[in-house]
């Protein structure tokens, strides 16, 4: 089937099988910052935004995208780079495979949460798994990035 939509601010016509999920389509069209992780909706590696809200592209049918705006990490490079500096400073990253999805959720959280606390940050990020870092360094980086005292 075909779908006219917008990805990272650009109008595009997607051509895809009816049963294809969004991360599969995005990667076929060259958006390789979108990663395939657990493929069961648990790890958050495949996170993209639909109309600014973080969703799992492994659990979203491409057909369901409709006229929503899709945003991948390719469109947020400056902001992602800014956050990455905090991560590097805290030694919060190892293999880096989870970083694109994790960063997408952090940047969505920054827009959505007012007066974030460590608890609300933990809660918001519960759907992003990292099997290397142990989360402590990430939390330090996020708190500094978001200005949480």
């Amino acid at each position, binding site marked *: 089937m075909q779908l006219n939509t917008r990805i990272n601010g650009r109008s595009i016509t997607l051509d895809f*099988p009816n049963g294809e999920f969004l991360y599969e389509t995005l990667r076929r069209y060259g958006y390789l910052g979108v990663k395939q992780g657990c493929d069961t909706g648990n790890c958050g590696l495949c996170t993209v935004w639909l109309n600014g809200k973080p969703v799992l592209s492994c*659990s979203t049918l491409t057909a369901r995208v409709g006229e929503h705006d899709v945003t991948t990490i390719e469109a947020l490079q400056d902001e992602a780079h800014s956050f990455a500096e905090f991560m590097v400073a805290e030694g919060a990253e190892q293999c880096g495979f989870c970083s694109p999805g994790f960063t997408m959720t952090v940047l969505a959280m920054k827009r959505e949460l007012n007066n974030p606390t460590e608890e609300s940050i933990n809660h918001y990020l519960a759907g992003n798994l990292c099997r290397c870092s142990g989360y402590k360094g990430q939390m330090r980086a996020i708190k500094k990035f978001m200005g949480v005292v």
Partner: protein
Amino acid sequence: MLQIDNYLYASDLAEAYDTLQSMPGSVVLGGCGYLRLGARNIGTAIDLSKLGLDYVKDTGDTVEIGAMTTLRTLETNPLTSSLWNGVLKRAVENIVGVQLRNGVTIGGTVSGRYPFSDPITALLTLDTQLQFFKNGQVSLEEYLAGKGYKDILEKIIIPQDGRAAAFTSIRKTRTDYAVLNIAVSRSAEAYRIVVGSRPGRAMNVIEAAEYLSENGLNEATAAEAGRIAAARLQFGDNPRGSAEYRKAICPVLIERALLEVIHAA
């Protein structure tokens, strides 16, 4: 890989219903959170996302929630997150992560009648009604007890009857399915004590509720109501817990939830 032969954006509920009845292998899509987990062939996928069923309405006597409303909306909407002591918010806020809750719909959750569901347990304690396109209005309790309908769920309806409620659960990790989940409520008329993820479907334990109606709710009767419920229910084994463990924690969780209701009053 998931195979979908035809994909229909339903233009109204009647078209969705007619397609469901007439097309072999047709399936109504909810939030599609579990679609990925099984390799299956779908004849016609019926998409309700263009029907305006993503809403929360305050009618005064009830709250109406459209079938395509996401769990994240229930968590963040000022009405659904605060009414009934925030029991709906508490029942959805630990389901995987924000990203999944931004996709999964309450209609898909209820229609699926998932035994492990946290929101179904909470909705059952709120005496929720379901509005189907063809079968009309039926109680969630009746729907869970039956075999389900080949119908289109349009909305769920929750009475605003001043009910005080509480939800609690035990889970191995924060975002895992519950080993056992409990929701209790007290209205002017009656109590409801619901136990889910047993691992069977959520059930309202009438005997325990009647005991409270006859004896009133206090610290002693809360504990006894928990014991009555645990004795009445059947529990089973699954990888998250044994029947024996579930039976042991059931009265404790019910007592804690009922004590919350006392303090909420």
